[in-house]
């Protein structure tokens, strides 16, 4: 069978990308870019480079797909994914560069919302990630994914897994140890709690063992992925699978929008939100979506949430094994043997090994010098990356001087005076001290903003780590848009029956209790 569809689609995608690049580089798009934020528009560097590379790539392979002769084989299978992959990438680019900024412009024109002091799009988390998933959902449900793109859409899983693997480069050993410990406790308590609660509720409501088994995996561990892994083991009936997956998808999509709103209203830190989303959201894809929705231009929340996802997926084989043994016992089928080794081996997430490998490599200093912390380093000379333009201006020095009287602590006063004297942060210790001053909120907002600027001027990210961060953001955005194209309303509409009731109860309890635990027990840093 030849998988590559003879179609002009990839060629057309290439031409669209080249057109975007041409319009951006020849300044024809300038008035529109000005409308989208002018100097505050963050994507000018991307828009004047990425469409060129991917446009040429698409045109070359698009011409081959349309005019060339394809033969059966592995090569044909992999190349058949290109059109769908580039289709997802085009959607991601359009949403990131145009749709999300346009919505931000509209939202800002409406003013800040009441006492929140935030714009509507910030509160609703309407950034390029959430909008990308929404566009994906709209495409699959209203227009259908075209035949030529089907294989490529399935490729989106690979984007997310590669993103997780690359994330391994961004953790320090201490961070991984602390986050890992936290996630094991949180996930352990809430996964086991949810699985137990579903099985208990299932008994009370007299649902079949197979339904209780598949539902407990889905509600407790990692949503659809756990349902897919557990359904054959507990011999779930088709209707039970449909009910469970429908309920989880509906709940997951709702959580992806509700969690960031609640997080913003409660002013949760990145760590708190990542831990809450990682525990409270049933479906693993929506955990990543909510984390990026909460913090679209940084990956601190995603880093926390993904550690929780990894912990979940590592627990999955154990839960599947537990359910297999539980099901055999409950059904009284003593002749059936559960092969523990086979279950664990088959369900083990191999991509986690990639994550561990990259984490191991990063600790050797291969990506950034060993004295860097998480790929970041201090540098206040030109040789270490400091820009002369970042020196304090006379106006800024004057403003800071007027607020010097507010600083009481001796160490802070000294660091502050040195800053005024040099026009930049003098040492790494001074930087830490001035960060403390900012967090203490002693100074006015404009003064604090100046201090934040001086901090950014002396804190640099290693080049390789910067590239990794950029790749990770793109891979997750790509993966989530593709996953959006696999969420159909017809599947969500199957939510119903007793699974919907049990799922609603357990999902609410899990989200509510995990939020309380996060607020009470997790500080802002780890």
């Amino acid at each position, binding site marked *: 069978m030849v998988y590559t569809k003879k179609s002009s689609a990839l060629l057309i995608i290439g031409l669209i990308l080249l057109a975007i690049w041409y319009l951006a580089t020849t300044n024809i798009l300038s008035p529109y870019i000005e409308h989208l934020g002018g100097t505050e528009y963050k994507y000018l560097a991307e828009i004047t480079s990425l469409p060129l590379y991917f446009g040429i790539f698409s045109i070359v392979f698009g011409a081959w797909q349309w005019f060339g002769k394809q033969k059966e084989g592995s090569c044909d299978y992999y190349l058949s994914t290109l059109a769908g992959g580039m289709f997802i990438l085009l959607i991601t680019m359009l949403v990131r560069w145009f749709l999300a900024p346009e919505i931000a412009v509209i939202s800002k024109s409406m003013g800040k919302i009441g006492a929140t002091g935030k714009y509507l799009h910030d509160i609703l988390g309407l950034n390029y990630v959430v909008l990308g998933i929404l566009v994906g959902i709209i495409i699959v449900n209203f227009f259908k994914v075209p035949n030529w793109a089907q294989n490529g859409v399935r490729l989106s899983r690979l984007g997310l897994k590669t993103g997780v693997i690359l994330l391994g480069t961004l953790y320090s050993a201490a961070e991984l140890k602390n986050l890992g410990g936290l996630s094991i406790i949180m996930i352990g308590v809430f996964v086991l709690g949810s699985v137990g609660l579903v099985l208990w509720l299932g008994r009370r409501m007299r649902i079949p063992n197979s339904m209780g088994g598949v539902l407990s995996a889905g509600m407790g561990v990692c949503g659809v992925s756990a349902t897919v892994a557990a359904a054959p083991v507990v011999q779930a009936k088709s209707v039970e*699978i449909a009910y469970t997956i429908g309920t989880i998808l509906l709940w997951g999509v709702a959580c992806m929008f509700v969690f960031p709103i609640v997080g913003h209203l409660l002013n949760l830190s990145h760590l708190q939100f990542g831990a809450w989303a990682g525990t409270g959201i049933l479906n693993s894809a929506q955990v990543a979506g909510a984390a990026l929705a909460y913090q679209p231009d940084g990956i601190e929340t995603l880093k926390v949430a993904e550690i929780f996802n990894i912990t979940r997926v590592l627990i999955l084989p154990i839960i599947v094994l537990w359910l297999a043994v539980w099901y055999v016992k409950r059904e009284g089928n003593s002749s059936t043997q559960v092969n523990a080794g086979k279950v664990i081996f088959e369900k083990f997430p191999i991509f986690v090994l990639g994550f561990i490998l990259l984490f191991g490599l990063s600790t050797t200093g291969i990506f950034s010098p060993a004295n860097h912390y998480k790929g970041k380093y201090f540098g206040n000379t030109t040789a270490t990356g400091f820009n002369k333009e970042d020196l304090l201006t006379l106006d800024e020095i004057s403003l800071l001087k007027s607020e010097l009287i507010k600083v009481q602590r001796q160490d802070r006063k000294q660091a502050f005076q040195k800053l005024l004297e040099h026009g930049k942060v003098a040492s790494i210790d001074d930087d830490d001290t001035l960060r403390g001053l900012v967090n203490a909120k002693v100074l006015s907002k404009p003064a604090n903003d100046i201090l934040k600027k001086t901090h950014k001027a002396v804190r640099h990210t290693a080049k390789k780590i910067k590239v990794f961060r950029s790749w990770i953001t793109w891979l997750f955005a790509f993966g989530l848009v593709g996953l959006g194209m696999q969420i159909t309303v017809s599947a969500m*509409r199957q939510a119903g029956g007793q699974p919907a009731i049990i799922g609603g109860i357990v999902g609410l309890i899990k989200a509510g209790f995990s939020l309380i635990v996060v607020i009470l027990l997790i500080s802002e840093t780890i």
Partner: protein
Amino acid sequence: MVKATQNILLASHGTIGAQAAEQKVFEMCASNAHITHLLVVPEFWKDMLGDDWLNNSVTRIQFENYLETELGQEVDQHIDRVHSRLEKLGICSTHKIVFGNPDKCLVNTCGLSEFDLIVMGSPRPKGTAGLRSRMTTKFTARQLTIPLLAVPHPNA
């Protein structure tokens, strides 16, 4: 009254509403009628992997094979049940299993033979448990060129 020589298309995939349609066919058919039993496996099943991305290919293939086998067994049981009942009544029958949108599949099947009558169940009343894969009677009725008998749901 339905004529004895009628060629009837029975659309049923085993729900309570569809079983009421089956019962009506059993009651109203003469022995020389021919029943074509159409069973549609709704296309929403192909989306049941949802947005799973954590599992490896082995687990996904296992799930797909399991679901396919499970659906296959359910279809076989349902076909056997209707067929054996019709056989007992001495009514000649054939069956057709298709995958897709129930409405479109019914309309397409109607075009394949000269049916005199289509018999199908009614949508289940609100609040009754069941999968949401029912036919939209309005759409179907507009497309059909032959009489349609929609049997009332037992819980209506």
